[in-house]
C-alpha cells in the first residue's frame, strides 16, 4: 500500500515536473523577435534608393514591371519601392513624384505622363534637385521633361506592326476605327502615328479616329455612337489598352464579333482571353518585366557613372504581334 502510494506520488511528481519544465522551455524558447536596428538596414541607407512610380498600380502589366525591377534592384543591392496610384489618379500621381523628389531619392523611374504639371515636376524640380528621371513604358518628349532616357516598347513600331497585321487580315480596303483615349498621351500618339503611317499607303483603307474618355461609360457610349454612325466599319483598333474588351462587349450586344477585325495593344489577361476566343484578331505584346529590369539596370549604371550619357532616344524592349489561333 505504502509502496503503491509512493509510486503514484513519484509519477505525479514527474508528470508535474515535466509540464513545468515544458512550460519553462516554451517560455524561454519563444524569444522575442525584436525588429530592432539591424546593421543590414544601416547598410541599406547607403544603397541607391530608387522609386518606380506608375499610374496603374497592380495591373498585370505593372506587376510584371515591378517583378523585373525588384529582381534587378536586388541583384545590384539597390533598394527599390513601387509607388503609384490606382485608376489613373493624376493628382495623386504627381504628388507621389513630388514626394519622391522631396525625399531626395537617388533615382525616379516613372510612367511618363504628358501634362504640364508632370513636365514642371520633372524639369524644374527633379532636375533642380539633381535627381535623374527615367520614363518607363510610356514616354514623354525628351525636351519637355529632361528625362534621362526611356525604357519600353517602341510604340511607333508597335503601331506599324498592328497596321500591317490589319492589312494582312482585312485586305487593302475597308473602314478602320481607331479608338483612342481623349487624354492623348505620348505613347498613344506614337501608336497612332505608326498605324497611320502604314495605312497611308493604302488609299482604299479609310480611317476613323474616335476619342473617348477612359471611364467605362464613356467608352461604351462612344462605341455605341460609332456602331450607329459607322455601320460599315470593318476593323477596330483599340489604341488605349483597356478599350478592346468594351468594344467587343458592345459589338456582341448587336451582332457576332467574328466578322469584325479587332486589334489591341497590351497583353492583359482580359485581352489574352479574348484573343484565345478569337474575338480579338491580334494584339501587340510588350515585355514589361524586361522594362523593369532594364530601367533599374540603366539607372544604377548611370548613377555609378558607367553609362554616361544614356541614349536620349530610349532603349526599346521587344514587342511582338500575337495573333488569334497562335496564342498559346
Amino acid at each position, binding site marked *: 500500500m505504502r509502496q503503491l502510494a509512493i509510486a503514484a*506520488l513519484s509519477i*505525479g*511528481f514527474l508528470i*508535474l*515536473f515535466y*509540464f*513545468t519544465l515544458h*512550460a*519553462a522551455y*516554451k*517560455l524561454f524558447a*519563444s524569444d*522575442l*523577435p*525584436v*525588429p*530592432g*536596428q*539591424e546593421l*543590414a*538596414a*544601416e547598410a*541599406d*541607407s547607403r544603397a541607391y*534608393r530608387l522609386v518606380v512610380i506608375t499610374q496603374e498600380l497592380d495591373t498585370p502589366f505593372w506587376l510584371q514591371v515591378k517583378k523585373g525591377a525588384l529582381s534587378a534592384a536586388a541583384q545590384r543591392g539597390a*533598394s527599390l*519601392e513601387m509607388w503609384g496610384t490606382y485608376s489613373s489618379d493624376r493628382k495623386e500621381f504627381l*504628388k507621389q513624384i*513630388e*514626394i*519622391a*523628389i*522631396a*525625399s*531626395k*531619392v537617388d533615382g525616379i523611374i516613372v510612367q511618363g505622363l504628358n501634362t504640364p504639371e508632370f513636365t514642371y515636376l520633372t524639369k524644374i524640380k527633379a532636375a533642380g534637385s539633381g535627381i535623374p528621371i527615367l520614363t518607363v513604358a510610356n514616354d514623354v518628349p525628351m525636351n519637355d521633361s529632361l528625362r534621362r532616357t526611356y525604357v519600353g516598347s517602341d510604340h511607333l513600331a508597335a503601331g506599324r506592326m498592328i497596321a500591317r497585321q490589319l492589312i494582312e487580315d482585312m485586305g487593302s480596303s475597308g473602314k478602320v476605327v481607331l479608338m483612342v483615349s481623349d487624354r492623348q498621351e505620348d505613347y498613344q500618339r506614337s501608336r497612332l502615328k505608326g498605324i497611320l503611317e502604314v495605312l497611308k499607303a493604302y488609299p482604299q483603307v479609310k480611317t476613323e479616329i474616335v476619342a473617348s474618355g477612359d471611364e467605362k461609360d464613356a467608352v461604351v457610349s462612344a462605341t455605341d455612337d460609332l456602331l450607329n454612325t459607322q455601320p460599315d466599319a470593318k476593323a477596330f483598333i483599340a489604341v488605349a489598352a483597356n478599350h478592346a474588351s468594351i468594344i467587343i462587349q458592345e459589338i456582341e450586344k448587336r451582332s457576332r464579333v467574328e466578322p469584325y477585325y479587332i486589334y489591341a495593344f497590351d497583353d492583359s489577361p482580359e485581352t489574352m482571353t479574348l484573343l484565345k476566343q478569337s474575338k480579338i484578331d491580334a494584339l501587340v505584346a510588350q515585355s514589361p518585366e524586361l522594362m523593369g529590369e532594364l530601367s533599374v539596370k540603366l539607372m544604377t549604371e548611370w548613377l555609378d557613372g558607367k553609362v554616361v550619357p544614356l541614349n536620349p532616344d530610349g532603349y526599346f524592349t521587344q514587342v511582338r504581334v500575337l495573333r488569334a489561333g497562335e496564342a498559346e
Partner: protein
Amino acid sequence: MNSIQRKIMSLSVIVLFIMAIIWVVLTYYNQKTQEQYNEVLQRYLRMNEMTNLSQQTIASLNVYLLQPTANTLDAFHVTTERILQANNEIAKLRTADNGFTLTNYMHMIESLVEAENRSVMFHDQKNNEFSAARFEEATRIHNYIVETTLSLIDKDLKTYDHFYRSIMAQSTELKRLGVWLLTFITVTLLLFAYWFSRSITMPIHKLTVAARELARGKFEQRIEVHSNDEISFLARTFDRMRININDLISEIHRTAQLELELKESKLLLKESQLRSLQSQINPHFLFNTLDTLSKKAYLEGSLETSDLIANVAGLLRYNLRRLDRSVTLREEVNVVLKYIEIQQARFADRLRFVQQVDERWLHVHLPCLTLQPIIENAVIHAVEPLEEGGTIVFRILSEDGERVRIEIEDSGAGMAPEQVQRMLEEQPQERGNAQGHSTGIGFSNVVKRLRLFTGVEDVLEIDSGLQQGTKVTLKIPVA
C-alpha cells in the same frame, strides 16, 4: 550539531530560494516586456514629435513672413534647429522594413527645411512671389511628412505585429508556467514537508512507544531509532538507561532471592541446633561415661560391646559438631558405617547392608549429616517394621565425573507417588515420624539443606512405588 534546527533552516532556505528565483524571473520578464512596450511607444512618440516639429517650423515661418523681425527669425531658426536635431535622432528608428521610407522621411525633412530657408532667403531679397511659392512648397512637404509619418507608424505596426503577438503569447506562456510552477512547488513542498516532518516525528513516536513499554515494565525490548539527528542520541541514551534499569532490577531480584535463602538456611540451622541442644544435656559427661563404658567392656573382654559403645560415642560427637559446616563424603560415609554397625548390633541378620563405594569421589563436600538421616529413614521404614528384615544398598559412583551419585536403595514397602511428591516439596513429615530419628533431623531438613548447599533443585531424586522399595539418589556436584 543542531541537526533538527539545521533541517528546518535548510527547508526554509530552499523555500526562500525557490521563491526568490521565481520572483526574480517574473520580475525580469515583466521588466523586459515593459521595456519593450516602452521602446515601441517611444518610437511612436518620436514620430509624432516629428510631425509636431514640422508643423511648428511651418507656423514659425508663417509668423516670420507676416512679421519679419529678428525675434520671429530667431524663433524660426530655433524650430528648424530642433527639427534637424530630431531628424538625426530619428535615424535610430531604422528597422529592416522601414529603411527605405525612413530615409525618404529624413530627406523630406531636410527638403522641408531647405524650402523654408529658401523662402526666408527670397523674402529677404524682397522676392515675395518666390518666397510664397517656397512657403507653399514647404507646406506641401509638411503634408507629405504627416502622411509619411502615418505610413511609418503603419509600417511599424506591421513590423511589430508579430512582436506584439509574441509578447502576448509569451505572457500567456508565463501565466501557464506560473500555474504549473505553483502546482509543482505546492506538491513538492507538501511532499517534502511531509517527509521532513516524518523524519522528525517518526523517531519521536518510536521513542514514545518505547517509553510507554518501559513504563509498563518491559525492559527487554531494544530501543532502535534510525535517524541522523538528536533523537537518535536521545534514543541511544534511553536505551542505555533501559539496560541499566534492567540490570538493576535483576540485581535486586537476585539479592532478594539470596536474602530469602539466607533467612531460610538460618532458620533450618536454628532448628537443627535446637534439636541437638535438646540432646546435649551434658555432652562431656555422656562422652566420658560412654568412654568409660567402652574401656570397661574392653577390660572385661567384651570387645564387641566395647566397639559398639565407641561407635555410639563417635556418632554422638559427630552429631554434636557445628552443623553449618560442610564435610567430606568420607566423613559422612564413616558416620554411616558407624550407624550401620550400631544398627546391625540391634537387628543382627535382619539388616543386610551392601556398600559399593567408589573411593575416588570421597573428597566431595556436602552438608553435614545428610546421608545418615536418609539411611536411618531406610532402616526405620524398610527394616524395623518387617520381621524378615531388609536390605539396604549404598552406592557411591559417578557417571560423568561432574556429579557424584549417591544411591540409597532399600527393599521396603515403598511409597505412593503423592507421598514422594510431598517429600520432594520439603513438606515436613508428621511429627511421629521425625521423632524416631536418632539425630532429630528429618528428611525434609536434609532436602532443603542439600538444595541450599548445591543450589540445584533436582539434587535429590526419589524412585519409589508401593511394594517396590525406595531408592533415594543424591547428585552432588564434584566441584
